[in-house]
C-alpha cells in the first residue's frame, strides 16, 4: 500500500517529468487530461484485493490536466473507470511508476518501455478522432501507443 502511494506523492517530480516534455503537450486543448493509477487501486476497486484497500484512500491517482496553457499535475482519487473525467488512463503495475521517475533523463522513454512490457496498461476514453482533435497525436505517438494496433 505504502509503495503504491509513494510513487504518487512526489508531485514536484511528476511536474518536472511533464515540463521536460512541454512540446508534446503544447498541442493539447484546455481540459485535456491523462490519469495515472497504480494498478493496486484498480484491482482493489475491481474487488480482487479489497482486503488490502483502505476505505478512503486520500491519494490514488495522478491527473495531468491542461490548464492555463500548461500541463499540470494534480492529485486525485480513483473510484473506477466510470466518471473518471480523463481521456487516457495508465494503470501501472508494482514498481512501474517508480521506474519512470527514476529514469530522469528520459522518463517517457521508460514509460513507453513499461507499456511495451505490459507493466503499464493503457485505456482510452476517446475515439481516435476525438484524441486527434484534443491534440494528443504527438503524445500518443511518443509513447508508441498507435503500435498497439488491432488484429495483428
Amino acid at each position, binding site marked *: 500500500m505504502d509503495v503504491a502511494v509513494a510513487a504518487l506523492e512526489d508531485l514536484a517530480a511528476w511536474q518536472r517529468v511533464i515540463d521536460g516534455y512541454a512540446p508534446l503537450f503544447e498541442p493539447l486543448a484546455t481540459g485535456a487530461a491523462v490519469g495515472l493509477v497504480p494498478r493496486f487501486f484498480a484491482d482493489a476497486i475491481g*474487488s480482487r484485493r479489497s482486503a488490502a484497500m483502505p476505505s478512503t484512500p486520500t491519494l490514488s491517482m495522478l491527473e495531468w490536466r491542461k490548464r492555463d496553457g500548461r500541463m499540470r499535475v494534480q492529485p486525485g482519487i480513483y473510484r473506477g473507470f466510470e466518471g473518471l473525467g480523463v481521456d487516457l488512463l495508465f494503470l501501472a503495475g508494482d514498481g512501474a511508476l517508480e521506474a519512470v521517475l527514476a529514469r530522469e533523463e528520459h522518463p517517457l522513454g521508460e514509460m513507453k518501455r513499461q507499456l511495451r512490457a505490459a507493466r503499464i496498461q493503457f485505456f482510452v476514453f476517446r475515439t481516435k478522432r476525438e484524441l486527434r482533435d484534443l491534440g494528443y497525436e504527438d503524445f500518443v505517438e511518443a509513447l*508508441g501507443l*498507435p*503500435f498497439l494496433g488491432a488484429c*495483428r
Partner: protein
Amino acid sequence: MTQRPGESQLPHLFRPGRIGKFPTRNLIKYGACCVSNYNGRDGTITPRELARMRVIANTGCGMITNQGAYPDPRGEGKAYFRQVAIFDDKFLPEFETIARYIHDGGAIAIQQILHAGRYGGIDLGYCIQPSVVPQTLPHFRPPREMTKDDIRQCVHEHAEAAQRAVKAGFDGTEVTSFMGYLLANFNSKFTNQRTDEYGGSTKNRGRFMRELIDGMKQATPDNPLIIRLNGAELMDQWGGNDEDECFELMAQAVDCGVDMISVTVGWQEAPESSIGRDIPPGYWNHLAARAKKSFPDTLIAFGNRLPDAGMANDCIAKGEFDFWEVCRPLLADPEMVHKVAEGRTDEIRRCIGSLNCLSRLFRDLPYTCTMNPALGHEVEPEYAITLATVKKKVMVIGAGPAGMECAITAAKRGHAVTVFEKSDRIGGSLLGYAAHDLARPDDLLSVIRHYEVMARKLGVELKFNTEANAKFMRSMLHQFDACVVAAGARTDMSAYDRLEGRERLVDAIDVAKGKVQPGKRVVVIGAGKVGLVVAESLRKNGAEVTLVEEEKRIAGDVMPSFKWRHSAWVEELEIRTLTLSRVTRVTADGVHVANGKGETFVAADTVIAAGPRKSNQELFRDFEWMIDELHGCGDAIMPRGLDAAIQEGYRLGVRI
C-alpha cells in the same frame, strides 16, 4: 467422384467428415474470420456480397461459414460499418440465397452470429460489456455494463438468430468470441469484473456462454452449433485469462454439448502479434493439439496462422485437430483448395499476411486483398478475366509485381505477352525488399515464385537483361500492338542536388539489391519503408545505423497494419532515429544534421539515400509515337507499394 491427384497426396485433409447429421466432403472449413464490409449500413446483404459468396461457395471446402451477423436490432452487437444483420425475418431472402449457393457448391452451410461486445455499437454512442472496462485502442465506443435483463435478452436474440439462420437453410450456426467479442468479454477476467453470478470464478464467467449455448441448442436442436473460443487470449499480461483458464472455459462448452470448438488466438487489443507476417506458420498449433487431446470426442477446428494445406494435412494426420479452418488464404486465392486437390499447388497465390484486409476494416472500408485484386469486385464483370475479343501482341516493360500481374492477366485472356526486364530475373524492387525483410521473406518471395510459375505455364515470354529505351523501341517498331510501362521507380537522387557532398551518397536501392556493400557505420536518409527495411537489415547484421527523417514520424508510407512492426524493430534494434531532421552536409567522415535543437554530426562510412522515389516515367514520352496502345501501371505511375502494383497490373491486364 474420381479422386483428384492432389487429394491422394493429402489424404487426411481430403477425407470425408461429419458434423452432427451432416456429412462433409473434406475436412476444410471456410472460416468467417472477418466481415467484408460490403453490405448495407442497415445490415442488409448487397449484390456485391452475394457475388462474393458465390465465389466462396465454390471454393471446394467441406464446410463454409458465412460471415458474422449481428443479432440485435439496436446494433449493440455491430462491430463493422457495413456488417450484416440477422435480427429480423426481413433479412431472410439474402441469407437463403447464400445458403443455397453454399449447398450448390457442395458444402454444408454454417451461419456465424457475431455480437461484438466491447468492439460493438459502432453506430451508437456506447457498447455493452459484462463490466465497464474501457478499451485499449482508440477505435471503439464507451462501455455500458449489461444488466441481467440485458443478458437474458441477448441470449434470446442469439437463439432467435440461430433459428432464423436455420430457417434460411443453413445447416448449423456458430457463435464467436474471437477476437475479443462479447462472449470473450464474459469469459475473460480482464473485461468481466462482475460480482454477481456472471462474474468472479471461471465457472461464473462461463455462465453467459453456457446459457448462450443452451439457448441456441434449444432453438435449433437438430443443427450443429460451433463455438469459437480462444486457446490463448494473449491478454493475460493485462489481467486476462491465462491458457489454463481458456481451456477450462472450453471444457464448459464441451459439457454443454457444442458440436465443434474452433480454437482461436488473441484479441484485437492483444499487445502481441497473433496472425501477422511476423508469426511463423504453425506457431499456434499447440493450442489446437491441446484442445484435441483434452476433448477427444468434440470436433476441433483450427487455422490461425496455418496457411498451408500440406501442414494442415499433417496436423490432421497427427490428430492435432479435425478440421482445417481457413479464411484469408482463400481470400487471396479462392481456387486454392481446387489447386491443392488437382496437384497444382505451385499455382497458388499465397496469403502473404500483409493484413491489408484488416487495415481497411478498421478504417470502415470494405476489405480488399493485396494478392487478389478481384476480391470485392466479383459483382463487376469488368474485373473478371474474359477471353479478349481481339488477340494482341503485348509488350510489358518491367518484371516487377505490376508488370508481371499485368502480363499473366493479359496472357490468361489470350494475348501473346512478352516481358522485357533489365535485370536477370522476375521481382523488381520486391526482390530487394524481400532480401532485407525481417518478418518473413518467404511470404514476399512467394509472390515472385507465383509469377515465375504462371509465366511459364501461360507461355509469357521473358526477355531478361534487356534495357528498354527509345533505341530498343525503335528496333521493336510494329512488332507489338500494346506496350505496358511497368518500369517501377527509383530513388530520386535529384532531391539531393543542393546537398553538399551529394556525390558521396549511395542509393538505397543499390544497397537493397546488393550492388553496394555499406560500411559498419551507416546513416540512412529517409525513414520510409525503403529506408527502414535497409536500416533494419544492416543493423541486424551488425552495422551501427542512424536514421534521419525530415518528417515528424517514421514509416509514413508503410501500410497501417505494419507501421507498429517497423517502429518496434527500430526500438528493439536500437537504431538511432533523428526525426524532424535534415542532412545539411555529407563528408568523408559522416553527415551534419540540422534540427530544432541545432546541428549535430553523425559519423558514418556510408550514407544511404532512401528519400523520395521517382517514377520511371520517361519511357512514356519515348514510346508515345512508336506504338498503337501505350499504358502504364504500378510505381511507374506513382511510387507506392506491392498492393497498388498488383491491383493496377491486374486492372490493366483485364482490359487490354
